[in-house]
């Protein structure tokens, strides 16, 4: 059975981050990236509701699961293979607010796909973020392939792949975990269990309570963490990364969290879940929770928090202005990059 967070040592008391090897600066950086992910997301909804963008898919509520795990990796050495909510992962691996907005508005300058893919479909070779599509679950196998390449080259790079509990029903998810287990590949399978596959609740998706229990069936550890506790996520990911770098194989981390928004801007979540449930989870939101911890640890002052807010807001304003005035792709771009010769 999977390891539970309660069983992990919550080292350090008031200074858990230091006990985990995170400096005050590192902890603040995690906080700021979480704030930035949220602020970008909120701006996207605003622009969408004003009728200036057709589609939003949201990261809200899942920032701790994303940034906490990405922070345990080494950007440009390790790879991330995200899914379409992973703003926190992409930002940690080098995407900027401008990049987010350029993709959101499908501009030519969008570094992910030059306006070809829907929002939040990240990808950058330079930043070691694998390009991903919309059919869920497929990416877990690509992570296994990338990790196999690292192993064949004798490198200790780690590949972290992200998915919702919804994707875990796909055959590819099973195949990927099985394949990674056979070859002891350095893969982190990070499930952001947000409770719903669009409208279908977890108990209609699987008969088990903890998805991480499945890891035992593949022969590697599964860990359940409070996905809204960024330090708990970091701790679990950090342990899994160390294990992977030692050549001991994959880990499945189930970060229990909640999707605060509807599935997308085209979804009405009132049709399938109670407002009370959402309100309950709003109380447990990861960002205020981490802010409170940082204040108690005397790492975050009110003044510093204001500074961070101002910086994040400026960044989002700048990104919005920049992307809104950036050009669309030209119709000629439609035919490019089907094959290599057209890529030159």
């Amino acid at each position, binding site marked *: 059975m999977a390891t539970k967070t309660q069983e992990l040592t919550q080292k350090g008391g008031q200074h858990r981050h230091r006990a985990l090897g995170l400096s005050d600066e590192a902890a603040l950086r995690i906080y700021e990236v979480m704030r930035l992910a949220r602020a970008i997301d909120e701006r996207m909804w605003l622009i969408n509701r004003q009728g200036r963008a057709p589609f939003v898919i949201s990261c809200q509520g899942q920032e701790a699961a994303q940034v906490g795990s990405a922070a345990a990796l080494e950007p440009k050495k390790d790879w991330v293979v995200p899914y379409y909510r992973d703003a926190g992962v992409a930002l940690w691996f080098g995407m900027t607010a401008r990049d987010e907005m350029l993709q959101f508005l499908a501009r030519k300058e969008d570094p*992910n*796909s*030059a306006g*070809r*893919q829907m929002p939040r*479909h990240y*990808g*950058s*070779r330079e930043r070691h973020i*694998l*390009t991903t*599509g919309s*059919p869920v679950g*497929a990416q877990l*196998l*690509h*992570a*296994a*392939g*990338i*990790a*196999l*390449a*690292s192993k*064949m080259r004798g490198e200790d790079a780690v590949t972290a792949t992200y998915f919702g509990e919804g994707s875990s029903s796909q*055959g*590819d998810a099973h*195949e*990927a975990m*099985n*394949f990674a287990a*056979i070859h002891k590949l350095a893969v982190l399978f990070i499930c952001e269990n947000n409770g719903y596959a669009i409208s279908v609740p977890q108990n209609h998706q699987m008969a088990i309570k903890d998805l991480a229990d499945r890891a035992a069936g593949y022969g590697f550890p599964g860990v359940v963490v409070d996905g809204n506790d960024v330090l708990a996520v970091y701790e679990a990911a950090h342990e899994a990364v160390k294990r992977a770098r030692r050549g001991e194989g994959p880990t499945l981390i189930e970060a229990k969290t909640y999707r605060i928004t509807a599935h997308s801007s085209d979804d009405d979540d009132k049709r399938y879940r109670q407002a009370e449930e959402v309100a309950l989870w709003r109380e447990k939101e990861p960002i205020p929770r981490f802010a409170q911890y940082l204040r108690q640890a005397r790492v975050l002052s009110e003044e510093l928090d204001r500074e961070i807010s101002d910086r994040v807001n400026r960044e989002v304003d700048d990104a919005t202005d920049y992307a809104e005035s950036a050009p669309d792709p030209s119709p000629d771009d439609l035919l*490019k*990059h*089907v*094959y*290599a010769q*057209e*890529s030159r």
Partner: protein
Amino acid sequence: MAERTLVQAVRDALAEEMERDPRVCVLGEDVGLKGGVFKATEGLQARFGPERVMDTPLAESSIVAVAQGLALEGYRPVAEIQFADYSFPAFNQIVNEVARIRYRSNGDFGCPLVIRAPTGGGVRGGLYHSQSVEAFYCHVPGLKVVLPSTPADAKGLLKSAVRDPDPVIFLEPKKLYRAGREEVAEGDGALRRLGEAALVRAGRDVTAITYGYLRVVTLQAAARLQEEGIEVEVVDLRTLRPWDVETCLGSVRRTGRVAVVYEANRTGGFGAEVAAELAERCFESLDAPVTRLAGPDVPAMPFSPALEQAFLPDADRIAAGLRRLARF
């Protein structure tokens, strides 16, 4: 130069490319210790090790998608799907992932990957070891599709496929694996360019455009018709995507009559695409309707020899079709 069967030529191509380029690796079900169910990878694991010639679980989506991960990280994988019929569990990975990687990343990522699979019928393989799957993959921009029918073409085209920067579906007509031998060159001398058809028999009366196993049968039909004074020109497409429109147009402009001869189900088969393109591009040269001589529209090739023979176009049926065209 050495005499080789088609399956030996495939093995030689893999061995030469693995020798030439350490990034080339092979993965699939039974490709390692056993050397493949058709022995296409026999001896490769002993020579190149279990990592470069890797036995995988029985899971086609894994085979294709892990290969894709390797390709994205600098390897040149050759994935074997044991029978083309079994490529469908990997269909999402091939169509939505492998084929779209370059386009969806605006050229940032590429996917140099070869997916090999034995294709076609005539070996008593029944419904699920006989299918012709090329039309599914020819419909997908981003993929290349190759279907050779001679040992030399198989070797030369496979070597080129391995060196190609884009994903290639490489279909091998299993009925021809050991059907005959021919002299096959070694090293770079063996290379054949993708996208070039071969004019394999010259004739002034009617053009037969074909590929795969039916190339052999079409040539038998052509020999028979010659005795009747009908000269058939036979074109083997060899690569289906991109296909060699110019060579086909040249032939049809000379003969004014054309049949596309293919083993797959008639409706929506690749021959339908060839027929449509030729009708559009050389209508003024045609003296007869563009014709398809193809497999029937039944789900797949049955196991019974009587039914298998009834499915596969034979020399009689192809000759009859071409005769009708010549006399039109």
